[in-house]
């Protein structure tokens, strides 16, 4: 009977890990190594050709801020941006240390005194803006998922409900974030009034805009996945007289996980694109604001710095999608 016990749920993660390790081990054979090499080579060639073309073409394009930045300038500026970040951190550390020292002194003189602890007032650096954007996009995406998946299940399960909700989905799905933004801004400033706010208003505005724009693909894919459960499996569920919750948990949800994840990946991609646009327009902190500020700044390095941001945005979007793919492989049964 022990073999059966081990067949049950607790043994599953190790089994999955085992497969992972095995596949890692297998990839080390010479033949597969060569195959991996070939797999790496072609993308590398593609990137090199692109960089070469960029290098040659960029100086030909003249703008009022000088010629378009080539790869070399962009590389230099990315180093520069990092250096600024490091410097800023040092200053911030000094500021905090001085403040603590001063406060300690005041407290030593008069233990009753009220000391003020202030945050470092310096402007956020490029990495800070990336972090802000990532936090905002994830918050917006999580809220969108929390709304879209349950709603999608209900819509997929009930034909009448679907007929009622479908026109709304179709109308709101194509709305651009830029159209939502003013409304969201006004509603947030009118309703989110608090002396000690947990979140910045700008954060809420960006996040809600992201949520509004990114929940549709998940909602639609979830409802389609739920409605497309194999009718034989539905009959099995009926023969077994599964309760509604067990039916949803054991049959409907697992069956639609692949579709749900397809929707989630599209949603996350949209969320990331929408966020940058929203930040630019609303001037809320994040990568979008960084791009806009540099544009307004109009120094000779601005274009290079914007190009750094463009590449960073693209790369982060790529990484986000990869992470979702990894989660999907971990969760979905058909992978």
């Amino acid at each position, binding site marked *: 009977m022990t073999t059966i016990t081990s*067949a049950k749920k607790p043994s599953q993660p190790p089994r999955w890990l085992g497969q992972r390790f095995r596949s890692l081990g297998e990839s080390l054979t010479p033949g597969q190594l060569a195959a991996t090499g070939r797999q790496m080579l072609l993308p590398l060639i593609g990137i090199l050709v692109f960089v070469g073309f960029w290098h040659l073409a960029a100086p030909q394009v003249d703008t009022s801020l000088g010629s378009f930045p080539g790869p070399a300038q962009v590389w230099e500026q990315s180093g520069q941006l990092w250096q600024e970040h490091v410097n800023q951190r040092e200053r911030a550390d000094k500021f905090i240390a001085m403040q603590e020292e001063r406060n300690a002194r005041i407290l030593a003189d008069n233990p009753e005194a009220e000391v003020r602890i202030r945050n470092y007032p310096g402007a956020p650096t490029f990495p800070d803006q990336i972090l802000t954007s990532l936090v905002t996009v994830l918050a917006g995406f999580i809220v969108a998922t929390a709304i879209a998946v349950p709603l999608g299940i209900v819509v997929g399960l009930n034909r009448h409900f679907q007929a009622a909700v479908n026109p709304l989905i179709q109308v709101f799905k194509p709305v651009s974030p830029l159209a939502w933004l003013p409304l969201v801004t006004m509603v947030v400033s009118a309703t989110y009034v608090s002396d000690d706010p947990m979140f910045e208003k700008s954060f809420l505005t960006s996040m809600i805009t992201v949520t509004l724009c990114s929940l549709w693909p998940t909602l639609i894919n979830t409802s389609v996945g739920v409605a497309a459960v194999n009718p034989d499996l539905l009959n*099995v569920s009926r*023969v077994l007289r*599964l309760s509604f919750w067990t039916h949803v948990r054991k049959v409907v949800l697992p069956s639609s996980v692949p579709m749900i994840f397809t929707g989630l990946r599209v949603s996350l991609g949209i969320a990331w694109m929408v966020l940058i646009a929203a930040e630019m327009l609303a001037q809320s902190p994040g990568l979008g604001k960084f791009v806009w500020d540099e544009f307004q700044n109009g120094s000779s390095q601005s274009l290079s710095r914007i190009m750094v941001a463009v590449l960073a945005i693209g790369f982060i979007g790529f990484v986000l999608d990869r992470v979702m793919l990894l989660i999907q492989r971990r969760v979905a049964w*058909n992978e």
Partner: protein
Amino acid sequence: MSKTHLELTGVEMAFDTPKGPFVALDNINLKIQKGEFVSLIGHSGCGKSTVLNIVAGLLQATKGGCVLDGHEVNSPGPERAVVFQNHALMPWLTVYENVELAVQQVFRKSMGKQERRDWIHHNLELVNMAHAADKRPGEVSGGMAQRVGIARALAMKPSVLLMDEPFGALDALTRAHLQDSLMEIQQELNNTVIMITHDVDEAVLLSDRIIMMTNGPEATVGEDLYIDLPRPRNRVTLADNPEYVHYRQEVLRFLYEKQRKLEHISPRRSGKPEASEGEQPKARAARA
């Protein structure tokens, strides 16, 4: 004879179509005893699956009804377990977990944890699938998955086992193998079985009784043939058995002389138009 176990009385099944009601089944009357192995045979579209779905409770007859052990059937339930044509296992659960889902649901209260585990294992052994307990349905062959489908149905301890062309999607050798397994299991457990088939040899080999259905629409029971061959039956020795050959001919005569489907032979469109429509409501019934 013993008391009637399952009884269908005056069953009529009509489907709503844009062109008005389509009567698939008309006045089906059937009495089945406990432990009987009954095959339903007929041309495709004659409503065999509809009969099975009515007994399963997946469909509601528009007239008449079905009574099992004195209780009217009006919803599906595990006491009428169904084996589907394409195994219908949950692809995300292992073989063990698929059977477990059924056992958990049916015997949650009446069996302890260990008892349930033993019972799942017992049923997997019955169909010779204990070795693949940890595999997913996608990792085993179609024949193996169908065995698990049978194990899942048997694990519900059904009073009637309903099988909808259980071996239809399998290759000939696997099918023969599974038929033999099914005969052994049936010998051991003495279940009441209703099986749909359009394989004449399968029907004669496995059944105590073959119900032959007329062509739809308004299909009904055409002939009711008792197969009085001793068990255990062996397909090889039976092949020359004059009684077996006689039964076989009887069914073939019904299917290909009395209930010949015209549109297969005659050129397109000159056949009976109603007969070709028979497919549609059946497909709908399966989806319902």
